[in-house]
């Protein structure tokens, strides 16, 4: 009878001594490696983008290349320059010779280029209007509302200057809806390109994210 009481206690002592706190779960801020080693290059050439669609009155290519030049100058340690040569067709992105010539076959240069589409669209929708206290709570009515939707699609390529090989290619599609039908295109563009830029930079330069990991003591 006594034995049967002491054995479970000993078994419990054994298991608690050998299993407790053997594993610790940690939330670690892990660096996410960059997609390309941009620090291996000393010159970043930003070529004109192939414009597929644009909003009238807005110089899309100029705004885009100027924006990226200014932003890369903050992040890239080498020289950032604009190169005036837009690919005429989509196939040109795979034509290594175009990019090799642009970069002067330099192993130190990398070319950033791509295609871009920026569009605006007015959308109408029936929205339920909240009744005020005077109108009574059961008198909800639908009203026709207009929204202005801006969409920016950027397909970005990073091409090695020496060989013309594509190092990195990614599509970004950003959409934003505005209540004001008078929303200027340039304001919308800068809001959209900022989001795309953040994603691009975190892919290219790497970033840090919290991740779960287990540390084991036995």
């Amino acid at each position: 009878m006594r034995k049967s009481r002491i054995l479970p206690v000993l078994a419990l002592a054994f298991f608690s001594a050998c299993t407790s706190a053997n594993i610790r779960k940690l939330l670690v801020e892990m660096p996410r490696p960059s997609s390309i080693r941009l620090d291996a290059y000393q010159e970043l050439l930003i070529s004109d983008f192939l414009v597929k669609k644009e909003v009238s009155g807005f110089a899309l290519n100029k705004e885009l290349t100027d924006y990226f030049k200014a932003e890369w100058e903050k992040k890239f340690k080498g020289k950032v320059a604009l190169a005036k040569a837009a690919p005429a067709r989509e196939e040109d992105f795979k034509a290594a010779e175009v990019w090799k010539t642009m970069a002067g076959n330099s192993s130190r240069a990398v070319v950033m280029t791509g295609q871009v589409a920026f569009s605006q669209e007015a959308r109408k929708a029936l929205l339920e209007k909240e009744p005020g206290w005077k109108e009574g709570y059961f008198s909800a009515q639908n009203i026709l509302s207009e929204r202005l939707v801006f969409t920016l699609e950027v397909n970005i390529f990073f091409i090695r200057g020496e060989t013309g090989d594509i190092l990195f290619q990614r599509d970004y599609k950003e959409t934003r809806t505005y209540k004001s039908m008078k929303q200027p295109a340039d304001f919308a563009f800068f809001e959209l390109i900022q989001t795309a830029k953040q994603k691009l930079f975190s892919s290219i330069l790497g970033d840090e994210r919290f991740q779960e990991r287990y540390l084991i003591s036995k």
Partner: protein
Amino acid sequence: MRTFGKALFLVIFAGFLFAACSSPALEKQMKFGIWAAERNLWDEAVFRWKRVLAANPDSAAAHNNLAVACEKKGLVEEARKEYELALKLAPDNAKVKFNYTKFKESLGAGDKPGPAKGKEKNEKK
């Protein structure tokens, strides 16, 4: 006589516990490493886990922990090597498997050879 038998049993049991729970000096090093890692002192943690590995190169736990530290320091290849060693030594350890899977996921497209390709979409109102 009965009391002596009980005492002997307890002594043997304590010895068994001690042996079963591995070498206490190494365990102390392991735990110190974890304590340091929890306080973001990863260099200290690496030092402790390397000491464990110097004494016991077959410690899957130390390889796993070192892999996490390498990952934290951005040493991708070293982390991969350590995770693979840990998995070789403890192929059924769910925690090591979890860490390795997450590590590979975090590498994403960079893990695969060739140019990085992808799509990212976002809609805001």
